């Protein structure tokens, strides 16, 4: 992966000036490359990675297996896109194996997710069945450990 993307992926708040210094490139060039990545859609956005369990202890996330009937011409795309548009839906993946879509849904509490599945998801034409798995605890999300693994035990000065 391009080093510029590596830096932004690790910390999207790294100042452009510092990125330019670190990569030994002019700041304007770095800015142009970022703009290019944004324009081509390689960079889809910037957001804070939250530990939702700390924001709201009642917060729940569920992985939902969805089995569905594909459509002539479009396969699963139309219904998958329709499901993906719901703001409750965090991610949607087309899967190989025993079911078709894996849908991650988040909600304020168990009830809101349950009602989303019952009233919104399961009722869509073409959806044959759903199986909902609630997450119990998050250990790692988006490549980031939710709990710091250990403190720095290095001596403050060493040869």
């Amino acid at each position, binding site marked *: 992966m391009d080093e510029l993307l590596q830096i932004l992926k690790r910390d999207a708040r*790294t100042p452009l000036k*510092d990125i330019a210094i*670190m990569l030994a490139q002019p700041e304007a060039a770095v800015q142009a490359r970022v703009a290019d990545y944004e324009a081509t859609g390689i960079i889809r956005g910037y957001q804070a990675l939250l530990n939702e369990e700390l924001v709201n202890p009642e917060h729940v996330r569920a992985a939902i297996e969805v089995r569905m009937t594909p459509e002539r011409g479009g396969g699963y795309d139309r219904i998958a896109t329709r499901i993906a548009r719901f703001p409750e839906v965090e991610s949607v993946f087309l899967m190989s194996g025993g079911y078709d879509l894996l849908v991650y849904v988040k909600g304020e509490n168990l009830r809101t997710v349950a009602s989303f599945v019952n009233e919104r998801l399961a009722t869509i034409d073409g959806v044959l069945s759903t199986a909902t798995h609630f997450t119990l605890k998050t250990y790692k999300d988006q490549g980031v450990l939710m709990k710091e*693994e*250990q403190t*720095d035990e290095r001596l*403050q*000065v060493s040869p």
Partner: protein
Amino acid sequence: MNDSKSPRSYVANYLKGVPRSGIRDFFEIVSTRKDVISLGIGEPDFVTPWHIRESSVYALDHGATSYTANLGLIELRRSIAKYVRTGYGADYNPVNEIMITVGVSEALDLAIRALVSPGDEVLYHEPCYVSYGPVITFAHGVPVAVETRREDGFRLTRAALEAKVSSKTKVLMLNFPTNPTGAVLNQQDVEEIAAFAIAHDLVVITDEIYAELTYEAERVSIAAVPGMKERTIFLNGFSKAWAMTGFRVGFSCAPQELTEAMMKIHQYTMLCAPILAQKAAIEALENGDADVRKMRDSYRRRRNLILDGFAQAGLPCQKPEGAFYAFPYIGDTGLSSKAFALNFLEAENVACVPGSAFGACGEGFIRCAYATAEDDIREAMVRLKRFTGSL
């Protein structure tokens, strides 16, 4: 009658002349303070990659708690032979020319003890890692420092070596990339040094622990220069590039006769390197390339960041081409390196190491390790600028 003696009188004479490391003195001062930003740490800020740690855990789970062969696990030695051949262009037989040691520090001690008789002179370049001089003294050799200078990019020149060599010189120690200067050698340098070693019939001990952390420059080793293998002990290890300092695992590559001589000492003193560390080292060599690349890129970016900070603070600094240390010149401030480090710590709570800890010619410099979080480097450089502005 009081005939009790001071315990000090029992200490061997040759040890009394060896000063405590200047780093240890400075550590004691720093450790009394809170929330220090430390640029004084000579080890990676990465934790060992998980797959390497996991291989040790797996080995422990499966009862790997025994000694290994004195030379180390043959599987690891085979991996090292392949690594040194492809990475450094030097060929060693894993059966009898490679030995696993407890860090490069042990290997260095073994090499010196295997080669030096009392009174033999050993050339080493300064500024350098703190243990080089003392290790020679412990072997009853005579340490002879060869200065490297900022004007030469802290590279070692044949002219400087010729000025210090004598009929008693037996060994030349090299450490490039260098702690604390970050200097590297190019192909012409190593060829000239090799010619010097051959002309004076010297054995070369080359400690290349930082070689994987070479940035823009081409990585070269004197061990690969034709005619050098028979007079070279090549040392390397896993601490820096794979972030495995606490595992304590290094290795030496040398002709069979020299390996055998080092092994004599190793088998009676250390016996073998810890098996769990050796298991981890196998995993590091077999599957750790991407980790090394990632860490090297990260150090290079942080090097650029810290160099910009020195420029902003008005301190000239040779661009380090390897390792993770910068060695800016602070002589224009009128302070000694120790006074600069102490005052900077006092005023801004940032720790760096006085250059004088690395040999007399390190005076006028400070060592700043950039194996430090980017945010800490940024903040330290803001404080450095404020500090130099106040002088």
